[in-house]
């Protein structure tokens, strides 16, 4: 097989794969732009003849969907921020100091990442019920934060590992104290690692369903992922185009964030999977 034939086959396979992965999203867009009458035409009307933005207008002017989106942004942003803040000191200590029990501690943190939120949500529901903290965004943020902490510790530690300690030592000789060194030198240099941990946590939080579904029931508090599940439960074949629009509304912010920050995200997945 000549390289040129190989190249053609590579392009062919690439196009088939791209189509396979793109098709579900394109179908979603197609449905969301149709009138109910065109939905019934199925694949024959892949490109709507009379495309309409009415479905989006109906979803977005509902008011409730704006609230769901805002709730999702708020929950996952604060959860992600909390995880990074909590993880950073531990990551710094793990990167810079050697001490007894460090190995088991880091392995323990890694193991927590493998515990399904499903296992802990059962007792958490009971605690929060007793404390009267169900229906509270604060509780959900705290759980998101905890879910994000293990991966954040590892990602940020890898980031700190790449900063030469010599830089810190030089600053210490110049009379900076440890807090100054951290704030002025180490943390700014670790910004890419902090950012990728934050973004990865955001994406995980955006996808979260179980935690808010269990801990929140009041409609005005739900994030978008739970809202579209409830919406799907109340929709029927005649409202498929609205469900498609709602799904798209739920998916587009995550896609946009991903497209803008792809480089950071890919690096974070690699660092997370191939640790050390």
């Amino acid at each position, binding site marked *: 097989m000549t390289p040129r034939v190989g190249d053609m086959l590579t392009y062919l396979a690439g196009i088939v794969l*791209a189509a396979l992965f793109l098709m*579900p999203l394109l179908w979603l867009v197609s449905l969301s732009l149709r009138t109910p009458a065109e939905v019934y035409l199925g694949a024959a009307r892949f490109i709507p003849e009379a495309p309409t933005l009415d479905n989006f207008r109906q979803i977005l002017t509902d008011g409730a969907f704006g609230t769901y989106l805002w709730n999702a942004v708020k929950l996952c942003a604060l959860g992600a921020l909390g995880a990074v803040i909590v*993880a950073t000191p*531990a990551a710094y200590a793990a990167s810079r*100091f050697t001490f007894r029990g460090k190995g088991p501690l880091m392995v323990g943190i890694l193991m927590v990442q493998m*515990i399904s939120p499903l296992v802990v949500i059962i*007792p958490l529901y009971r605690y929060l019920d007793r404390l009267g903290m169900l229906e509270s965004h604060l509780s959900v943020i705290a759980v998101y934060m905890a879910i994000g902490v293990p991966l954040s*510790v590892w990602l940020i530690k890898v980031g700190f590992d790449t900063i030469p300690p010599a830089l810190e030592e030089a600053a210490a000789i110049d009379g900076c104290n440890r807090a100054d060194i951290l704030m002025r030198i180490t943390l700014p240099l670790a910004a890419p690692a902090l950012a990728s941990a934050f973004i990865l946590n955001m994406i995980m939080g955006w996808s979260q369903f179980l935690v808010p579904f269990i801990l929140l029931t009041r409609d005005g508090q739900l994030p978008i992922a739970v809202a579209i599940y409830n919406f799907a439960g109340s929709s029927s074949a005649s409202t498929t185009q609205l469900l498609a629009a709602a799904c798209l509304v739920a*998916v587009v912010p995550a896609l946009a964030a991903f497209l803008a920050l792809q480089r950071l995200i890919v690096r974070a997945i690699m660092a997370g999977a191939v640790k*050390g």
Partner: protein
Amino acid sequence: MTGDRRIWLWFTPVLLVLGGVFLIPVADVIRFSFSDATLLRPVTGYGLDGYASAYGDDSLPVILRNTGLFTLLSVVSLQAMGLAIALLLVRGDRRGLWGMGLLRTIVLAAWVIPGIANGLIWQMLLSEAPFGAVNSLLRLIGLAPVAWLSDPGNAMLSAVIANVWQGSAFSMIVFYAARRAVDPVLYEAAAVDGASPTAQFLFITIPQMRGAILVNTILVTIQTLNTFDTILALTGGGPGRATEVLSLNIFNRVFYSYDLGGGSALAVLLLAISMMLTLVYLAVLMRKGTR
């Protein structure tokens, strides 16, 4: 600085958060599993009733079979798909082909879609209504429609397809990184010796990537076992119990049947499987570290 007790101060926030949200609840799940508590009623006594009711339940063999099948099919397909795309990308990069970055972006885009949305999207694609995407396409080209979601065997297949569409990107990234770390000299030497591409794949690529494949297998298995939102939105576990996997069963048991004892007993099983796989993962990582 070493040996200083103050070092643990750096870890205090992490330990408090993980202790409160993970460690204490895990201990409590194990305690609940031996109790007669329901979701809202406190513990009044301890015993093995939860285990007896959960593990003696007629539905459990079906659930475990579903879980095994779903996990096996997903893990094999996720990795095959991830490996295929990764190798394609590496070849494209090497030959300077156009559009490889675009392909990677498209595959990764599916990965950021929330599981619930993923289930709903595939429900619209596989809908058995006359206007469902796949079935209306089949009809356009003159083929008979398929009962994607109402036939038990097909429903399982549909759940796996949805899961693989969304999840392949993770394996792709892991394998892409691993493949690029393989020393190109190996391939050059093999080419000089006249090894065919198939031989190179079998005797260089696969052995060199063995570690990555093993690690990825474990990570993907844990992820697959622990998630159920795609299935919940796609089939709700049906038809009947055809796609009800262990995690979905625990969720239904606790939050719809209020059977906290039984749900906790099964959660302990899920936890035990995850932790065992994690230990294997750690053993693999450490062996790699010492080599």
